[in-house]
């Protein structure tokens, strides 16, 4: 079962484990909002080592405001970046600011 739903504020874990990780560095430690729940997929960090990747992990489309990602962002305050993140990288972040 997916732990988060659309609209939930989430915090991307600021972790730096070795191996094949699909969470880009630039969003680690940042805050965003779940836009969509994309279903469940085998864990790529396990698949990379020829394991079965089970149990599958919920995958989320997480939308982050560019100003939250890059404090000196010089584009429009409306601009966003959207990344697809597996549930093991997300923590609840409370109410959206």
């Amino acid at each position, binding site marked *: 079962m997916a732990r988060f739903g659309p609209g939930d504020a989430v915090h991307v874990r600021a972790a730096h484990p070795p191996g094949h990780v699909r969470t880009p560095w*630039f969003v680690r430690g940042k805050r965003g909002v779940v836009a969509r729940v994309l279903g469940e997929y085998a864990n790529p960090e396990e698949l990379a080592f020829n394991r079965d990747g089970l149990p599958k992990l919920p995958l989320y489309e997480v939308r982050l405001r560019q100003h939250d990602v890059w404090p000196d962002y010089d584009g429009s305050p409306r601009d966003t970046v959207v990344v697809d993140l597996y549930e093991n990288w997300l923590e609840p972040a409370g109410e959206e600011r």
Partner: protein
Amino acid sequence: MSGHDHDHDHDDHAHPPDEDGPLTHYQALEVAVRELLIEKGLFTADDVRAAIEAMDARNPSRGAEVVARAWVDEGFRERLLADGNAACAELGFDTGAIRLAVVEDTEDVHNVIVCTLCSCYPRLLLGLPPDWYKARAYRSRVVREPRTVLREFGTELPDEVELRVHDSTADLRYMVLPRRPDGTDGWSEEQLASLVTRDALIGVTLPRLPEPAPA
């Protein structure tokens, strides 16, 4: 006729350098594994060739056809946004097992696609990505200063429009459904498709009407 006078310097030709260097580790590995699998009878050299030929036959015109259909057929547009693979299959395009997400531009949102981690791209629909899409400069800059990058592609967006950068980090591949340009009422699907370029499907440019021919 000789057809080739040697009164010019061949060094001036624009041609890629000959690949005379030693194989890299991974090139050698690929050749070794491929030859071993052929030797063991798992597939033939012709199977490999045919797979490359089939890959090269895929091209952005398929994406353009999909977009044009979505512009003229509201039901198709809804199905495309809900399930990209199934909608493409309606037009006879097999997009494989990887999920295809189509993201729609609106008056308020413009989408652009990147894969910062590698070069994920909807290859089974659009073919191979352009070299710049795979380059570190695009991959790092389009998430950091997307408006500057788009400007370099000749695309200016007003600040009222949300520029939404999609990073294909995981199990989905992305394609943009751009807005239909004004002044195309009554156009056929084929005419509409001719406006949709590869770069518009990535989101670094917008479909535009051709400049009127000079009088």
